[in-house]
């Protein structure tokens, strides 16, 4: 019965996302059409004539009215057709399937790094508020968020690859001497492990370290701050005092009692951080030659590749919705009260 109820909540959440997705489809459509470039001109190639441009405009359906174009786009979308990217000549779906795992793999690792650093820092700061640990933590994480990601990225390449030579060459997902593992999930590390190829796994992982740290540093601050704030609040609440008065161990009090309660606001921040990271990917991928969805988006945007931009944004939006759903599910798992307020 209880599970049924939660399922209903989750389903409700999904339906709630529908207007947002429709909104995104519309906004993206309008935004792409507002881009100043003319895909027909781009498509027509270097030696185009007025006539050939016109031909292409017709073949791309760009001569139709906006409303018609939207209708065609929407109905194609409904049948799962995201269109063809003008700039790469491949179907957008294909591009997304190939590039999304690259971005996700990187983002997940970055998130892992960020969580691994920010949470302990936040907890340490919260257990000693206003001490030097606290202030140091505040300054360190703020420093991380104060630099543009591309700068941090280039600087790290310079330092760790160029000067120190301890990082692998920023050549994308794998160094030249390795072959990409047979694709199952699209995550090179996981695929390599599935293939039993430890060497490739190591190579794929080492390629990710610098970009993941670059992305991660940028998100340390919101996470650590939120962890600190949430922990402070929870630690000063009555039930912690009860737990302490009952003689529970410090670690039990800190993790089983305090941290689990602080998890909810942290989770929310985590969701924000994740979508933030997906956005910052655009810049980091450019620095590290990462063949992900972000660099695809930049190129597409620059050449007014309508289908590609639309497909990209849609994929991200769906990802965002799924992410929030996941967070909601974790929420309901962590907090029995969730779902009682609709």
């Amino acid at each position, binding site marked *: 019965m209880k599970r049924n109820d939660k399922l209903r909540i989750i389903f409700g959440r999904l339906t709630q996302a529908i207007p947002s997705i429709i909104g995104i489809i519309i906004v993206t459509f309008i935004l792409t059409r507002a881009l100043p470039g003319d895909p027909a001109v781009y498509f027509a190639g270097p030696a185009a004539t007025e006539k050939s441009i016109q031909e292409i405009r017709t073949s791309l359906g760009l001569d139709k009215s906006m409303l018609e174009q939207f209708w065609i786009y929407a109905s194609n979308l409904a049948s799962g057709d995201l269109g063809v990217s003008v700039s790469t000549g491949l179907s957008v779906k294909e591009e997304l399937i190939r590039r999304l795992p690259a971005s996700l793999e990187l983002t997940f690792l970055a998130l892992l790094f960020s969580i691994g650093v920010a949470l302990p820092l936040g907890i340490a700061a919260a257990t000693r508020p206003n001490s030097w640990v606290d202030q140091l933590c505040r300054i360190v994480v703020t420093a991380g968020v104060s630099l543009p990601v591309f700068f941090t990225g280039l600087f790290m390449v310079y330092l760790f690859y160029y000067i120190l030579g301890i990082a692998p060459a920023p050549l994308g997902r794998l160094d030249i001497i390795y072959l990409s593992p047979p694709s199952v999930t699209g995550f090179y590390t996981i695929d390599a492990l599935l293939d039993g190829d430890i060497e490739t796994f190591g190579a794929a992982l080492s390629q990710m370290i610098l970009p993941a740290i670059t992305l991660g540093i940028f998100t340390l601050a919101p996470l650590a701050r939120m962890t600190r704030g949430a922990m402070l609040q929870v630690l000063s609440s009555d039930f912690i*005092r009860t737990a302490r008065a009952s003689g529970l161990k410090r670690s039990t009090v800190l993790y089983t009692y305090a941290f689990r*309660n602080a998890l909810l606001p942290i989770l929310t921040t985590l969701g924000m951080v994740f979508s933030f990271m997906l956005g910052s990917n655009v810049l980091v991928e450019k620095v590290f030659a990462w063949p992900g969805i972000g660099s695809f988006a930049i190129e597409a945007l620059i050449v007014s590749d309508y289908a590609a931009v639309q497909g990209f944004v849609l994929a991200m939006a769906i990802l965002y919705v799924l992410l929030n759903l996941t967070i909601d599910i974790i929420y309901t798992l962590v*907090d029995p009260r969730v779902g009682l307020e609709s």
Partner: protein
Amino acid sequence: MSNSVPILDIKNLSVEFRTRSGVVKALENVSLEVFRGEIVGIVGESGSGKSVSALTAMGILDPAGHVTAGSISLGGLDVLGASEAVLQTMRGQQASMIFQSPRTALNPIRTVGNQIGDVLHRHNMADRQHLREMVIRTLKTVRIPDPERRFDAYPFELSGGMCQRIMIAMALACSPELLIADEPTTGLDVTTQAAIMDLIRDLSRERNMATVLITHDLSMAADYCDKIIVMHAGHVVESGSSHDLFTSPRHPYTAKLMKATPNGGGSLDDIASIHGGLPDLRGLLPPCRFSGRCERHEAICDSGPLDAKEVSPNHFVNCQRPL
């Protein structure tokens, strides 16, 4: 009573809080003894140091708080000198504490059964297999109907009175020698309040526990306590048996407090308020912290440190000019 050793023995305790806005002298020279089988009430206005005394006794004072003088012995253990590990074992096992607003005093996202289980497990009262059984047994002792089902309930699914019972169950799970109840019924309905107080009294009688009851409400203290300690602004102003205190209060503050409490019958004219509020506990304070509100205040009150005077057997007053 006096022939045995007290379970809780606080001697000349002084506590201050170092805050940004100055040093708060929260407790000064506080002494109290609690023996097995007796219920001792601590009464006083908000901010008079009741909770601080209790928390210090349990060794869970806020990090800003510092004990500047005195000693605390709890079941023979030197609380102020003991290591955190020893104190942790002591808490819950030798002494436990329950708090006001039971709903927030329980972990909102853990089932109540598990919370009690945590305590039992911590103090090696039950192994994992028998934990549930033990918890349910504990729940029965606080007269919770249908304990099997309650085990899996979250605090928000229970009423305030029920939560307070859970708290009591948790506190008594390991059969401690001392129970400190810090305003256990504030925020509960009158009817629930009475039931909870009955429960606490019955349990401490049954188990021959030493019990400290902290409350605002003099009439409640009168109803349930054997001995009462009256605090004001970090001082113990008067202590003695309930009977002595109620029939012949000797400290002006105690007398005033009694007069201020409506107790059924009588008219509004019969009750009186106490002039002014608690003094600011930061900065310099007069030897008698009540002097600023006291109508009997005279020069002698400011003359020197106060000592408890035994005005009749086991009835102490901290006043230069007792009634």
